[in-house]
């Protein structure tokens, strides 16, 4: 039994796109063409092969997040230089590149997580559904609620599994049945069956892979639009890593995912689009190449990209 309110909450992410957003996307045709163009309406079966080039006549996917000439500074050090790329809705976009190329910095700039580090600064634009996230009147708290995050090291709160998942909804005063929401989030994070009998147990007592899925469930519970993942599987064993990747595929139906990874196979397996970053001579990260993952991995345009994805550098 779900009340209309819950119904609304649960399905909000699959509701038809906001007309304003549609408008924004239509208003700028061609100029900033999304990196991936393919059929993707809700409910339609996903293409079998990731990133298969599709004819231009198809409906373009809507970019949810767009970076426009974004530079990021830690004090006077420019860590990221004029990064521009689009993140299509309901797809997985991977950020790859050598250590220090600014992948985490970019990721954390997208939900204003870097605001927590003193004397950091952003230039250029980070747009979310057409709104500049660094606009004067934007509250970073609201941003983070819509653009959630999963970290490299699983970081469950030292609270019960239930309280971990319920934390976000409680903080935001979400109405509706908390039990249902927790169950649903844990199910979506493919963790429910393993923990349903021990919801009162501490989240920190789970295995690493379970902890990471708990963190994903916790992020999902606030019904974000976008989920940022910074090397979500790097602390996990191969089996848990595959579980997380599989989970990401299931999640992309409802959420837009941006994932940082060091693992080339993972990027190739798990993403629709890839952005390859490199570190310039000034130590600032910049975008070398971006496009559908298959193209980046099988037919890169830039020699640097080819060297990197084939493991010859980095």
């Amino acid at each position, binding site marked *: 039994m779900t009340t209309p309110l819950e119904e609304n909450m649960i399905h909000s992410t699959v509701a038809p796109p906001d007309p304003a957003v549609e408008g924004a996307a239509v208003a700028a045709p061609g100029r900033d063409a999304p990196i991936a163009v393919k059929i993707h309406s809700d409910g339609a079966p996903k293409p079998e092969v990731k990133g298969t080039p599709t004819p231009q006549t198809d409906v373009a996917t809507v970019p949810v997040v767009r970076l426009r000439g974004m530079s990021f500074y830690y004090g006077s050090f420019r860590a990221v230089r004029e990064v521009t790329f689009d993140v299509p809705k309901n797809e997985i976009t991977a950020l790859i590149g050598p250590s220090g190329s600014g992948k985490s910095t970019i990721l954390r700039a997208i939900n204003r*997580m870097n605001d927590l580090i003193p004397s950091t600064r952003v230039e250029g634009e980070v747009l979310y559904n057409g709104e500049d996230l660094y606009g004067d009147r934007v509250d970073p708290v609201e941003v983070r*609620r819509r653009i959630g995050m999963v970290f490299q090291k699983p970081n469950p709160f030292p609270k019960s599994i239930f309280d971990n998942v319920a934390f*976000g909804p409680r903080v935001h005063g979400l109405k509706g049945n908390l039990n249902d929401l927790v169950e649903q989030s844990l199910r979506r994070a493919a963790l429910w069956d393993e923990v349903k009998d021990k919801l009162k147990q501490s989240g920190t007592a789970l295995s690493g892979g379970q902890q990471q899925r708990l963190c994903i469930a916790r992020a999902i519970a606030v019904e974000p639009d976008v989920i940022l993942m910074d090397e979500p599987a790097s602390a996990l064993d191969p089996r848990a890593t595959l579980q997380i990747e599989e989970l990401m595929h299931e999640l992309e139906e409802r959420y837009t995912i941006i994932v940082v990874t060091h693992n080339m196979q993972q990027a190739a397996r798990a993403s629709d689009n890839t952005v390859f970053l490199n570190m310039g001579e000034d130590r600032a990260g910049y975008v070398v190449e971006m496009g559908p993952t298959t193209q980046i991995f099988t037919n890169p345009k830039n020699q640097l990209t080819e060297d990197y994805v084939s493991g010859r550098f980095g």
Partner: protein
Amino acid sequence: MAAAAQPGSPPLSVVLRGSAGRRRREQIIRAIFFGAASLSILVSIFIVLSLIFEAINFLAQIGLDQLVALGWFPRRGLFDLRTLFVGSVITTGIAILVAGPIGLGTAIYLSEYAQPRVRRIVKPILEILAGIPSVVLGFFALTWINPQLVQRLNPGAEGFNLMAAGIGVGVLIIPLIASVSEDAMRAVPRSLREASYGLGARRITTSLRVVFPAAISGITAAFIIGISRGIGETMVLAIAAGGSGGSIFQLNPFEPGQSITAAIAALATGTDQVRGASAAFPSLFFLGLILFFLTLSLNLAGDVFVRRTRQRY
């Protein structure tokens, strides 16, 4: 030195034996340190034993029924323990009511809100506060806190009273509670804060719902250490609480009173001129023993909580 490799040098088995002189020196050094360690333990044992011995002596001299009386007037053979107990509890309670919120607020501010620059300024100020001798604070409680604060809010308050003394003790333990709590909160990993902010929690929510519970053991330890310090505090109470000659049993914090510590100070400094007289002098040891066990158990409890904090991460 590859001595063994040179021709004509002693065989390896002899070289490996090392020098007998050095081994003996090591043993002597070891003995010295062992002696120092044993001495401190022996002194402690001696003190505790003499406390116990004299306390028994005291209890043997008076009847147990004398431990409940009109008040604590050792000169007159009135040894009402409740008076001192209540004096200690009321003043320590007031002190914690003052220092708890202020100290915790300071800790939350320093650990969660303050820019590094501000922290660099505020922390040393706290340390200065911690360095104020308690005799100065006692005087301050008597001459400023009481007339300017306590008697303003309650004109009926006496010139010496438990309230002013308790506030004075509170001021004394603010830095303690603040710094121990702050350490505990700063020990909470940044990843937990980021998890909270990443879910769209505000700073106050993150502080109160994530950092605070994660640091609860350390914060509990801070309070226990604060209580222990409050119960052990002497000078402020001896100066500002009144009742140096003794005190009637009463519960009103706006009246004078005497704590265990202040009673000991009064007896030991001879304010009571009782040396050798009746049971008054041995009562000193009895009180000392009670105080010792009170603070010992508090410190042990504090230790348990501190250790629990350390284990978590």
